[in-house]
């Protein structure tokens, strides 16, 4: 809401500049900022009468004028088409400043000396665009144009919250200012001088949809003269960015901005039968609104109709046919209460939003309607010379009495502090216009004024007291009571995983939760990743899906970093993936990562090799170690994301938790990547479930270990893991560890064979093993391996 301080001063006196007022309102109402008015800095301009205006001998479109500025006269060259002798305009003499900080200097224009310039409203920053120079009435040459044109006005932008529609009008804000500054609020003058036939004789109103329009007041003003608005009215509207159109239209805008309640003026003679019918539109019904757009309507739309046709889209916009024009003689004035939701839906369906619809959506005060209509009538009589028909046509209901709330003063004290007592509470509520009476037993009965429909419960009243006191006026306290609460161990475990990944040299990233259809289909689509959840209204039309996998957004990060020269990347994300889960919508925590570029950091004595499968697998196994998970295993993988020969499933104790491996060529190409990329994605909830919650102390071994090695020649395609598994399956009690320490393929072996070197460690917790015992255990294992498989001793 744009607030003009000059306008505000019509209803309340206050002794603050815009900065002070904005601070006070920010503290106790809502955020207020001093706006830079476009006319700020305009200086030294005066009213001047054009004495003569003769054509410039050297230029068709210019005039050479002699102007009287009170203290003397000057010659100026003027290009405005509306300049004529006898008019009063505004002179910017040499040394004065106009909008934009532009300083006026004497200059020669086509051979004629111009001592300043006559200015337009645009040149003073009063309008965004204007034609011709300003024409003034009722001011002598040399007179002060600053207040007449509002050049002395200051502007505040007020961020009005949805609970305070009363502050969408200057009067609502003035009431706040009065209460917050302790000054008096003045109601605008209403002077009707009703005469002639009554409104009821001249017009009728029928409400067919009392839900959409609970109350409708019509008044009639006869014999108006349409013309320009007086300077004060045009200036007031201009100060808040509304263009002056004509006296009647300006009055409707002015009263709307004054009360926050939109009203509408119809050309009485173009309303068929002088009859208003409020009804819903029929499907496909058409009307032309006053912006000359033909609109096709639906039953959501509430219409104001005359005896035969729609004349306005209720609460949104008037119709073109009944619009006030220069020929208008008589006015039918509407002041109505429309249902907020009906207006909201109607406007939304047409995709329009107007000053009127905005206010009706937030709710207007049905109890103030008579007064608002009267205020408009009074202005129309005063400024357009109309005669107000006695009485009004009032259909519907004002919604009944405004509520009373019982306020227990003790609850104010207990919420705001001991020092806020009964007197302060009463004074605060009274200042904001609440009626306060004693309710007995330490309670107050508080009558809520009709313009404060936001106040419905005791807590709302406590806020009023707090606003009056100022939020700074409450003593801070830090009491401490401990609360037994179940700790969120999942969060702690996730943090544990996060820490472990960072220790392994990975950068944490946070990527978007959205993904495109195209990117997920590159890695297998919904068959692999599950049915994605789709947004009805994505902000980026390319990415309408919630991610079912982390991979696409992680690979985007790999690519964008590669594009800025960051090739060595070790990144991970710990976040959520989403998918349809039967009829429901599921979300799960996932850990995913990518590694690419050099396997070790560049150094002066080594040319780093690119990351390979075992670098990545090592990270995952090290992660498992860091998390005390002792049995990670590789499993089958048959997706399209990974290279068929370098991809595997990740499982713990037989439970598949995800996958890891090198990206397939196809996926690399899809992301325009050339370096090999190792990736992994692991279900975090499953992984966390594998972390032992408690670790039990085991006595440290007291006896030495003994190691024996064995080299087995096996088929080239045999898996080392199978041999390890076979060794473990034997369950040799003295065996405590087996490691692969060497792989050899070469001339010393028959073709199609390879040699695997295993180191076996033996130990007993009871005694020092003799060589004999170790050798026996070792040969049991070796002979089993050579007998039960095709492995041969090398």
């Amino acid at each position: 809401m744009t607030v003009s301080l000059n306008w505000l001063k019509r209803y309340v006196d206050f002794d603050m500049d815009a900065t002070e007022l904005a601070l006070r309102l920010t503290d106790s109402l809502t955020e207020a900022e001093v706006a830079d008015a476009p006319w700020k800095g305009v200086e030294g301009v005066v009213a001047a009468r054009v004495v003569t205006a003769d054509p410039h001998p050297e230029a068709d479109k210019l005039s050479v004028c002699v102007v009287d500025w009170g203290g003397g006269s000057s010659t100026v060259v003027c290009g405005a088409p509306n300049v004529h002798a006898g008019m009063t305009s505004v002179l910017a003499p040499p040394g004065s400043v106009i909008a934009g900080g532009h300083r006026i200097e004497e200059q020669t224009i086509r051979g004629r000396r111009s001592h300043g310039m006559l200015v337009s409203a645009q040149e003073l920053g009063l309008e965004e665009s204007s034609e011709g120079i300003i024409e003034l009435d009722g001011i002598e040459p040399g007179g002060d144009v600053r207040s007449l044109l509002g050049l002395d006005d200051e502007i505040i932008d007020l961020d009005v919250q949805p609970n305070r529609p009363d502050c969408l009008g200057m009067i609502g804000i003035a009431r706040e200012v009065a209460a917050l500054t302790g000054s008096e609020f003045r109601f605008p003058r209403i002077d009707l001088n009703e005469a002639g036939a009554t409104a009821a004789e001249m017009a009728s109103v029928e409400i067919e949809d009392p839900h959409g329009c609970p109350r409708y007041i019509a008044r009639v003003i006869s014999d108006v003269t349409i013309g320009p608005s007086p300077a004060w009215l045009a200036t007031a509207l201009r100060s808040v960015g509304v263009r002056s159109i004509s006296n009647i239209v300006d009055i409707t805008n002015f009263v709307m901005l004054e009360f926050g309640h939109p009203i509408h003026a119809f050309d009485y003679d173009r309303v068929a039968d002088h009859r208003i019918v409020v009804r819903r539109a029929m499907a496909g019904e058409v009307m032309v609104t006053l912006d000359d757009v033909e609109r096709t309507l639906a039953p959501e739309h509430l219409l104001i109709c005359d005896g035969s046709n729609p004349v306005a889209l209720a609460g949104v916009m008037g119709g073109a046919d009944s619009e006030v024009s220069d020929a208008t003689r008589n006015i039918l004035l509407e002041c109505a209460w429309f249902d907020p939701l009906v207006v909201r839906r109607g406007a939304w369906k047409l995709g329009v939003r107007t000053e009127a619809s905005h206010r009706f959506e937030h709710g207007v005060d049905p109890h103030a309607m008579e007064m608002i209509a009267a205020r408009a009538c009074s202005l129309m009589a005063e400024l357009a010379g109309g005669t107000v028909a006695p009485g009004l046509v009032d259909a519907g209901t004002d919604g009944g009495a405004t509520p009373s709330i019982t306020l227990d003063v003790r609850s104010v004290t207990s919420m705001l502090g001991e020092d806020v007592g009964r007197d302060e509470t009463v004074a605060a509520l009274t200042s904001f216009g609440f009626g306060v009476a004693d309710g007995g037993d330490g309670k107050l009965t508080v009558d809520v004024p009709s313009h404060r429909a936001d106040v419905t419960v005791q807590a709302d009243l406590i806020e009023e007291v707090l606003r009056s006191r100022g939020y700074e006026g409450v003593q801070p306290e830090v009491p401490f009571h401990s609360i037994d609460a179940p700790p969120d161990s999942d969060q702690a475990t996730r943090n544990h995983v996060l820490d472990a990944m960072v220790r392994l040299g990975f950068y944490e990233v946070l990527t978007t939760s959205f993904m495109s259809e195209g990117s997920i289909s590159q890695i297998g689509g919904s068959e692999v990743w599950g049915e994605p959840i789709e947004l009805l209204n994505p902000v980026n039309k390319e990415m309408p899906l919630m991610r079912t996998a982390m991979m696409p957004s992680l690979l985007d990060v790999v690519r964008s970093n590669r594009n800025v020269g960051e090739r060595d990347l070790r990144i991970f994300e710990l976040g959520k993936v989403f998918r349809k889960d039967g009829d429901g919508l599921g979300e799960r925590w996932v850990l995913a990562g990518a590694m690419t570029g050099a396997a070790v950091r560049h150094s002066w004595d080594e040319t780093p090799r690119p990351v390979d499968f075992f670098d990545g697998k090592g990270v995952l196994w090290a992660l498992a170690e860091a998390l005390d998970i002792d049995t990670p295993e590789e499993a089958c993988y048959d997706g399209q994301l990974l290279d068929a020969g370098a991809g595997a499933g990740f499982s713990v104790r037989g439970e598949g938790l995800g996958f890891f491996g090198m990206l397939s060529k196809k996926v690399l190409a899809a992301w325009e990547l050339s370096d090999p990329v190792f990736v992994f994605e692991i279900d975090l909830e499953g992984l966390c479930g594998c972390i032992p919650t408690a670790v039990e102390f085991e006595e440290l071994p007291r006896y030495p270990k003994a190691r024996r090695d064995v080299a087995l020649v096996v088929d080239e395609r045999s898996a080392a893991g199978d041999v390890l598994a076979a060794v473990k399956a034997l369950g040799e009690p003295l065996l405590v560890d087996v490691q692969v320490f060497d792989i050899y393929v070469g001339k010393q072996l028959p073709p199609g064979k390879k040699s695997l070197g295993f180191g076996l460690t033996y130990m007993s917790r009871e005694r020092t093993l003799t060589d004999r015992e170790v050798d026996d255990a070792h040969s049991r294992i070796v002979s089993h391996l050579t007998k039960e498989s095709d492995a041969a001793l090398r």
Partner: protein
Amino acid sequence: MLGRLRELGRDATAALKSAASVVELESIRVKYLGRKSELNQVSRGLKDLDPEERRSVGRAVNELKNELGALLEQSKERLESAGEPSSGLDLTLPGRMPWVGKKHPVTRTYERLESIFGGLGFDVALGPHVEDDFHNFDALNIPPEHPARDGWDTFYIDDDSLLRTHTSPVQIRVMESRTPPIRIIAPGRAYRNETPDASHGSEFFQLEGLYVDRGVRFGELKGVLIRFMRELFGTDVGLRFRAGFFPFTEPSTEVDVECQVCHGSGCSVCSGTGWVELLGAGMVDPRVFEAVGYDPEEFTGYAFGLGVDRICMMMTGTDDIRLFLENDLRFLRQI
């Protein structure tokens, strides 16, 4: 003979004292004290000397051997304690560094906040990102189609499902599942249907706080938030509590912190006001208690919410919120 011994002693002493390495020392030992050394030969030839001479030369040989032996030990100690340059390393060459990882700046900010609020007795609670209308709006006193909903541009999935527009639904979920007293913070991602720009993301990071008990006062809300902000920004930071509006709190307040860039004198970050809006808070609206089945006569409470990415921006001087989800390594390394 005695003169020759003195000569030998002089030479050997000089050699031992000037020895520059243990290796050199060993060759000196071999030369002067070894089996084939002159001294040893003299020693072996003693038996051929007459008794008189044998006694005096023998004593002189023994003395010299002891003297040189002691000196040898000394020199050895000197050289060993000085350390021996092994093979001429260029110590200015860089070492072989392991990869170093880092948490995302937003994560680190969360950790800081969780630790501060943890110290104030708040436990962490989490909730789903895909929410229903009831938890995200209705229960928070934001009725359907109310203009108050305009403040939350919402991503919808179907008639009832949406992406949470704030972390506030976690309040509702916690209250539904527990009885007071409750004191929690709810960190997490939230979503708004806004075109991202330098100061708004369509995905962003919030932290919600809730305390419900009997007789909770507005002053406690102020006390906890002041404590929090002083711990975060320092004890001398300027703070301002002012009027605010949120459908789910009444009274509501917005809290500003002194601009950390200009320290209150006014700059472009704070639009010249010297203040930056940091968080929204208030006393839980009784209608919210009714929605979760608490008796508003019995319980009161406060709630607050803040933008974690914004705090991270303020503390690091980052000027574009989009950088957080872009994950440019050059940015992540720096911040």
